[in-house]
């Protein structure tokens, strides 16, 4: 097996998952205007619901994935209604929202640990039976191909929705200026509710993909969230294409670093990328 080819393939798959994380986060941020740390928990919740349906209830993959995605979306919607909306109504500062969302992240992760134990879980059942494809000397599993295709489909669907539907236009209007959007008749509260459903569902999809690809544990919410946030900042805050670009830049750097450093440093490398960008190019690769 060619190591270079393998690292490139790994970078592409990681990049696809980070893209989803960054896109969901970008959606939430551009409308609600704060760093929703609870987003990481929605990814984990989606992954664990899929795990329940697939591994525990023995249902088929599509049903499990659908259940996980819907669960993540619903959870995001409910948390927005119960926690963030009352805070926004009271004109709470960003710091207050940030700390509240931190609480959301901790509570949901801990509840998942209580239900499922903090053990590492993987969604694939028969890892050895899975077909493996050979691409330029690197190996890619069937699951990874499906993840890649699904991620691409979600990205395209999201881009089209934002560009051509009324909902997408409402989202863009709120992202530009919420007050003006409200003045011209956009029901911003309702749009933000839907955005939390969709954004969290995309986060859930990323969580499920991670669970299939490399496995999950309850506290993976924070790393997932931070990978999404780093991609989001590196790409350029509020820029949809930038988020994808940032995700791949992050994935490529992480996998290139895997040449020189053991895997334990991966997360530290991700932060090093973020820090370098914050210092030298805080507006990201593609500023909005």
């Amino acid at each position, binding site marked *: 097996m060619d190591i270079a080819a393998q690292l490139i393939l790994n970078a592409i798959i990681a990049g696809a998952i980070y893209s989803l994380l960054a896109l969901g986060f970008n959606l939430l941020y551009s409308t609600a205007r*704060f*760093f929703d740390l609870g987003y990481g928990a929605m990814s984990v919740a989606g992954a664990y619901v899929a795990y329940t349906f697939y591994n525990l209830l023995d249902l088929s993959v599509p049903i499990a994935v659908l259940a996980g995605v819907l669960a993540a979306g619903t959870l995001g919607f409910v948390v927005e209604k119960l*926690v963030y909306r*009352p*805070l926004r109504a009271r004109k*709470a*500062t*960003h*710091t*207050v*929202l*940030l*700390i*509240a969302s*931190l*609480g*959301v*992240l*901790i*509570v*949901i*992760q*801990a*509840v998942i*640990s*209580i239900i499922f*134990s*903090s053990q590492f879980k993987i969604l694939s059942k028969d890892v050895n039976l899975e077909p493996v494809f050979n691409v330029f000397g690197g190996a890619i599993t069937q699951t990874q191909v499906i993840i890649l295709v699904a991620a691409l489909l979600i990205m395209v669907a999201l881009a089209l929705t934002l560009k051509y539907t009324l909902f997408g236009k409402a989202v863009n209007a709120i992202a530009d200026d919420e007050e003006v959007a409200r003045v011209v008749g956009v029901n911003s509260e309702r749009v933000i509710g839907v955005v939390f459903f969709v954004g969290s569902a995309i986060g859930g999809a990323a969580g499920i993909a991670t669970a299939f690809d490399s496995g999950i544990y309850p*506290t993976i919410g*924070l790393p997932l969230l*931070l990978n999404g*946030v780093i991609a989001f*900042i590196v790409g350029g805050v509020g820029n949809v294409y930038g988020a994808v670009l940032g995700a791949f830049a992050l994935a490529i750097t992480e996998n290139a670093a895997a040449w020189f450093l*053991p895997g*334990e*440093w991966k*997360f*530290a490398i991700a*932060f*090093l990328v*973020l*820090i370098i960008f*914050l*210092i030298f190019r*805080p507006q990201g690769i593609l500023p909005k």
Partner: protein
Amino acid sequence: MEYLIHIAVLACIYGILGISLNLVMGETGLISVTHAAFYGLGAYAVAFLLVGFGINFFLATLAGMILASGVAFAIGVVFLRLKEVYYVLGTVGSNVILFSVLLNWNSVTRGPLGIGGIPRPEIFGFRFSENEAFLLLVLAAVAITYAISVLITRSSFGRVLNAIREDEDVVSVFGYSVYHYKLVIFTIGAAFAALAGAFLASYLTYISPFSFTVVESIFILSIVVLGGLGSGRGALIAAGILVITPEALRFVGFTPDIAAQMRQVLYGLILILLMLYRPQGLLGRFRI
């Protein structure tokens, strides 16, 4: 009785952490999620110097405080120019990186195994080996930390810090170098976090990197939020509450793993409920 003293020692250690983070976060308005890293540096410095070289605890503590200050100074130089949430992420990143260093620098920190056999403090031939004596020592440290924090907040330096929290642009218009003020208080806060770490290492006689994760930083942050921003006394009371309350869970009869997760649920809920109903915390003087 032995158990009560144990709880009291832990509450004191977290009291020091709470008071010192309050200086940074409460008085100056810098939401820092890296306090556990400085706490860890203090603990590791003491463990390394006591076990490896048999240096006196108090000298080693001083060395730990200087080390943490130095690292904090370097981190501060990089991050304190960043605004709001970027600063928060930068601090999360430095915690992640310092944790990776503690975890992977095997020759100095012994990696995930941690360092054991750390002796108790000794001065003029008297060894604080009894927990009662140790408690008195930690209480003295809390008193000193609290006194210094009061001195700082009542000084003209402290008033500038408070002004920075309220509106840093105005402060810089008046000719104060906001950046340098932030750097000084960030460095002082780190030194006291290291003091707490020194006591932890010597008290438990064993430390491992897993006590100094981002999650621990979040716990220290919840102490300050519960106590109320800008209240050293609040931080002390909150440290007591947050250390004692979860102990009740032990008596309800949860298994240790579940009890640990219930603690997380509790901390998370405290953050959410405080943000919803009492954002200024127990004794806070300021709104966030």
